[in-house]
């Protein structure tokens, strides 16, 4: 009996204690991430490390789907005030669609920002305020190539489009697939257009601005049409795999990794999947930027990683900022590069690259070493990206529609997006 009473009293005291505790320290933050294995793994590693460092904070990871469905979830949760305290989301135009000035907390004064790459800051800013810290490394958009094939035929990495096509010709003549295309996953069809942006901005430096202001169009800018034209050239030359219309992203990776195909235009985030699915072939895969007309102006189109944001409506902004500071620190950066396969150079000053990176990453580094050899993709410097681009590029790559018509069609698609965003001049 007495034991029971004691136990009862003790537990009552315990309840009183724990109930009183949150008053000074304990905080629970919710953290919404997309459900891709890499994001979840990195988020878990960061949370674990942070909780060790700040034991009074508990962070609960929630997952959401990626793609258009995920965009919708983020938008509606922000609009209805149900967003988690911290969330992971794209930078660039997709961020702009969230109207960060109204919906997000200003992270300009987070200490970690001092070491964040200015190029990255520009893609998470609006009206001069910075709203995010980077989550992961930069990525390149260009062309994966099979190094074994290149060695076998004595080819060298092309610096111009003409060299690229000449390489393709030799590979095709040898009975191999020159360029893998995978239109079962329609998004993979956009690369030739999107990764040509370095060349476009080299030719027309103020394209992004004029394009956002409704002054420049794809159809009326010859340099902008190049991407569509290249796609058509490659298709018309018969360089694609026979089943390009039905092949999937995974097929594309397999082809370039195992040497069924020599090239696969893709973002370097594919290195993660390559390492996972074809580890024994990883060293056969190299990477180069999509070449343009002029070998002297060869540079890389860069995709910025997702970022961590804090909704303005969160009741725990201060605590959330501390976590964001940790994510953006050199330590946070190291945790991420240790957890996942590195897809490109880190964006935090002082954050080292692991020693044994695959050749595809090594191939990217020279572009980043010299200023001016990289440019963020258009979707990071302009808030507008038409949703139908992937269908349009499938059409061009399948020979259904010509490049001029496709570019005009894409301009129409972009107009819809601009109007929906309520941009001026549209």
């Amino acid at each position: 009996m007495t034991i029971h009473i004691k136990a009862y009293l003790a537990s009552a005291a315990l309840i009183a204690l724990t109930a009183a505790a949150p008053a000074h320290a304990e905080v629970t933050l919710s953290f919404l991430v997309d459900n891709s294995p890499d994001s979840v793994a990195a988020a878990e590693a960061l949370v674990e490390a942070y909780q060790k460092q700040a034991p009074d904070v508990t962070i609960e990871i929630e997952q959401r789907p990626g793609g258009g469905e995920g965009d919708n979830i983020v938008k509606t949760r922000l609009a209805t005030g149900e967003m988690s305290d911290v969330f992971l989301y794209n930078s660039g135009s997709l961020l702009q669609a969230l109207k960060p000035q109204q919906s997000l907390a200003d992270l300009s004064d987070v200490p970690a920002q001092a070491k964040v790459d200015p190029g990255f800051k520009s893609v998470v800013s609006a009206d001069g305020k910075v709203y995010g810290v980077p989550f992961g490394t930069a990525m390149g958009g260009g062309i994966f190539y099979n190094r074994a094939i290149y060695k076998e035929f004595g080819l060298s990495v092309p610096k111009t489009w003409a060299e690229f096509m000449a390489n393709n010709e030799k590979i095709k003549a040898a009975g191999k697939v020159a360029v893998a295309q995978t239109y079962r996953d329609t998004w993979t069809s956009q690369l030739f257009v999107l990764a040509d942006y370095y060349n476009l901005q080299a030719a027309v430096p103020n394209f992004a601005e004029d394009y956002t202001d409704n002054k420049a169009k794809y159809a009326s800018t010859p340099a902008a049409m190049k991407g569509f034209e290249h796609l058509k050239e490659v298709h018309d030359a018969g360089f694609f795999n026979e089943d390009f219309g039905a092949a999937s992203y995974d097929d594309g990776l397999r082809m370039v990794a195992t040497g069924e195909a020599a090239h696969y235009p893709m973002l370097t985030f594919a290195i993660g999947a390559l390492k996972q699915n074809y580890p024994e072939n990883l060293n056969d895969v190299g990477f180069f930027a999509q070449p343009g007309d002029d070998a002297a102006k060869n540079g890389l189109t860069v995709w910025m990683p997702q970022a961590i944001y804090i909704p303005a409506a969160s009741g725990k902004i201060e605590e959330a900022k501390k976590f964001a500071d940790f994510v953006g620190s050199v330590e946070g950066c190291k945790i991420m590069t240790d957890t996942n396969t590195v897809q490109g150079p880190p964006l935090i000053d002082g954050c080292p690259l692991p020693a044994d990176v695959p050749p595809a990453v090594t191939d990217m580094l020279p572009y980043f070493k010299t200023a001016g050899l990289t440019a963020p993709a258009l979707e990071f410097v302009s808030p507008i990206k038409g949703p139908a681009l992937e269908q349009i590029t499938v059409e061009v790559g399948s020979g259904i529609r010509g490049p001029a018509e496709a570019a005009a069609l894409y301009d129409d698609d972009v107009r819809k997006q601009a109007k929906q965003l309520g941009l001026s001049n549209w």
Partner: protein
Amino acid sequence: MARTRPRSQKSPYPLWFFVPAAIIYGIFFLTPTVSSFWYSLTRWDLTTAEFIGLENFQQFFSEPFLVQSLVNTLIYAVTTSGLKTVCGLLLAVLLTSNIFARGFLRTVVFFPVLVSTIGIGITFTVMMHPTKGIINAALGALGIAGPGWLTNPSLALFSVALVDLWKGVGLATLIFIAGLAAISTDYYEAARIDGATRFQQLWRITLPLVRPATITVVTLSLIGGLRSFDLIWAMTRGGPGFSSDVVASVIYKQYQAGFYGLSTAGNVILFALIVAIILPFSLWFNRREVVQ
């Protein structure tokens, strides 16, 4: 009997029986349907709707791939409906005649109706793979170079329509079997005595007398065809490019892209299309029913 009923006029069939159903139907079906007419005239982000007049409709009819989706919807509905009617009737005639394993065959033809559309869509997508699929492998064995069923832009929509036929013909067959069962055998008896061939019997007796079933099949498959989404989405997602987009898939894509007003305008266009096609048809059918 001792109980007195003060209002003896009160019906034993109270109108409040309508109420629960009416509430659910009214809130979840009718309200959105009615409000869609307003939202289709706006640029809408779910929180604020800006009135823009007919701009969404203008957009719909000026974008080549949206117009194409409208044409595709009609092609798809007419193709699937026509094929289901013809094949359904032929199968029904076969499966009501005195043949071996009749019950089993009816079962086999009908079963796909009950199976998940998504499952069937994925299965046929794999079987229709241009190089590795078993359909082209079988054709290859016969010396025929199989087409890119789902990758050839001029073929994709019809390939999906064929799968729709495969999945839906069982229902049409079933309705025709019920219709055929209602036809008295005397007619055929008389025709045989007059020396009519089997084809003449089909053309002169079966076809006219099975007309109510035909109308049901055509109406149902037309409505189904015009609204069709899941099979197309599972097999081609409207591709390659926009070549197999239908209005329902455009509605989904515009919704995904965040163009809520435009998506709703697509919905209104689909209403209009269905009403314009089905209403005259059913009115005519209902009148015939009354006459009979």
